[in-house]
């Protein structure tokens, strides 16, 4: 009787895990199935490297997503430039320096930050951050890549901070003690021993934060202006892949080239996020063995 129960539990848990894998596989198959027909009309090269995105064009349609890919990369890299230093330093502070009292305040605040809906962050970008940016850089408006980058940085901060903090806490105490014993001060130990030792975990944290930034839709839709031109600088309007799909998928008639191309954009996004997650896994695994 007991053995049967054991088997039952095992199958139940296995079944649940299987459902999750099935869902992911299903999404991937849906993306592939609905993007392949696009490539009978346009070549992959034209799609990925074409410089003009104009699907509902006056005379003819162009489906080149190069400006859109570059926009996504720009806001993602901008977001990382903003949130990685801030995030790692905050994580180091929480893990190593903060008193328990300070931890009690900072950690819940970060969790609340993680819970803010993306529309609210986007709203903040339009109403507060936009005018600031316009003033600082002497522009006529604040709907640009910098705005999007900062907002995305704010949204990836909680992810980076919690994971980096875990990584730093996981560094064995021996390292710290050895460093102090050799005469290094507290700060030297932190910067030159602890953080490098936690580097694999920190890199994984950054990769996950990056995955969050790549896939964020509502915030960039509201705050970056969505102009499809090839971005010339961070001070101009950009149009990310996520925003493009969000704007256009609602009105495109089913089973037209435009429809399939939007799924192809989704596929590119999926692949990008997948690669980022894969990289983070590999880094974590490879360096775990060192310890």
């Amino acid at each position: 009787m007991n053995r049967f129960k054991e088997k039952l539990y095992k199958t139940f848990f296995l079944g649940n895990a299987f459902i999750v894998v099935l869902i992911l596989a299903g999404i991937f198959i849906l993306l592939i199935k609905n993007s392949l027909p696009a490539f009978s009309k346009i070549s992959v090269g034209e799609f990925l490297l074409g410089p003009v995105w104009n699907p509902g064009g006056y005379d003819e349609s162009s489906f080149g997503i190069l400006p859109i890919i570059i926009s996504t990369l720009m806001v993602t890299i901008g977001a990382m430039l903003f949130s990685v230093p801030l995030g790692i330093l905050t994580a180091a502070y929480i893990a190593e320096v903060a008193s328990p009292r300070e931890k009690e305040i900072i950690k819940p605040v970060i969790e609340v930050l993680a819970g803010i809906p993306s529309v609210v962050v986007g709203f903040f970008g339009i109403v507060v951050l936009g005018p600031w940016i316009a003033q600082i850089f002497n522009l006529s408006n604040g709907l640009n890549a910098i705005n999007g980058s900062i907002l995305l940085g704010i949204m990836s901060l909680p992810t980076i901070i919690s994971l980096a903090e875990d990584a730093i806490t996981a560094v064995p105490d021996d390292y710290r003690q050895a460093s102090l014993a050799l005469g290094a001060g507290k700060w030297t130990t932190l910067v030159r021993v602890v953080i490098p030792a936690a580097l694999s975990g920190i890199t994984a944290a950054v990769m996950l934060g990056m995955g969050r930034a790549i896939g964020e839709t509502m915030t960039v839709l509201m705050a970056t202006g969505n102009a499809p031109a090839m971005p010339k600088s961070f001070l101009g309007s950009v149009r990310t892949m996520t925003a493009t799909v969000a704007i256009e998928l609602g009105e495109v008639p089913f089973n037209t080239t435009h429809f399939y191309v939007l799924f192809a954009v989704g596929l590119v996004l999926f692949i990008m996020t997948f690669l980022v997650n894969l990289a983070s896994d590999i880094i974590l695994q490879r360096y775990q063995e060192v310890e």
Partner: protein
Amino acid sequence: MKKIGFIIVSILLMGTLLVSGCAKGGDSQEMLQIKGSDTELSLVQRMAEQFMQENETKVAVTGGGSGTGIAALINGEVDIANASRPMKDEEVEQAESNGVEPVPIVVAMDGLSIIVHPNNPVENLTVEQLGAIYRGEITNWADVGGSDLEISLYGRQNNSGTFVFFRDAILKNDYSENMKRMNGNAQIVEGVKTDAAGIGYVGVGYVVDTAGNQVEGLRVLKVAKDENSPYVSPLNKKDVMSGAYPVARALYQYTNGTPEGALLDFIKFELSDQGQEIATEEGFFPVPDDIKPENNNNLQ
């Protein structure tokens, strides 16, 4: 203790499921679904609210842009598609191949308004200048009589009927790649209010408050058909209804086949004096006399 907790949670869950099931099935009232144009959104919502006060039928109105509404009508998901542009031939073809027969009704007139920042000295533009600005051919306000500032373009996204109408009527070509694509009329208004070099196009309902006065913080430009014609404002009822304002347009609603029953009642309400007065209060203009016969035809 744990077991009791488990039982309570299960009962609550089942209870919620049962109740939600009831709410869907047990409705004896009819519900009209309306979707589409952002320009018409607040107008049709107000008409719906007024209608619901006097009738049992429930009416739900959402936005998403004319293109989204039309796609929903083609897919058989809504009773009315609000469209601030007429349906394209391909859309009509697609509808018919889906067994949907689109019937148009004009519910109000709009004077699509060109707005700029109040500090911008420019007051008048011709259709040609407007087109050149939005095509990206004119890039500095100094070229049309303003200050030396790079023009900052605001427009809608390509799911919007206003986007398509403005492009086909004024630009006759593609928009500049540098035009910012905003989510709706309200966002364009907010954008231009804070942008000294901004220019945008919005439905006239968004530049006028309920008393019929122009909203503060914006300047509405007068537009002329060409250099020899007079510059006309979209706030002038006579000029919009007569077609003297070059960017006037009809606001449509499409139904699947001739409307009947509660749907017909709602549309008749919209076209009645009461409904048309709501249109005026919202800043739009009533259906002109020369379009009324066509409407009546389509309703038979």
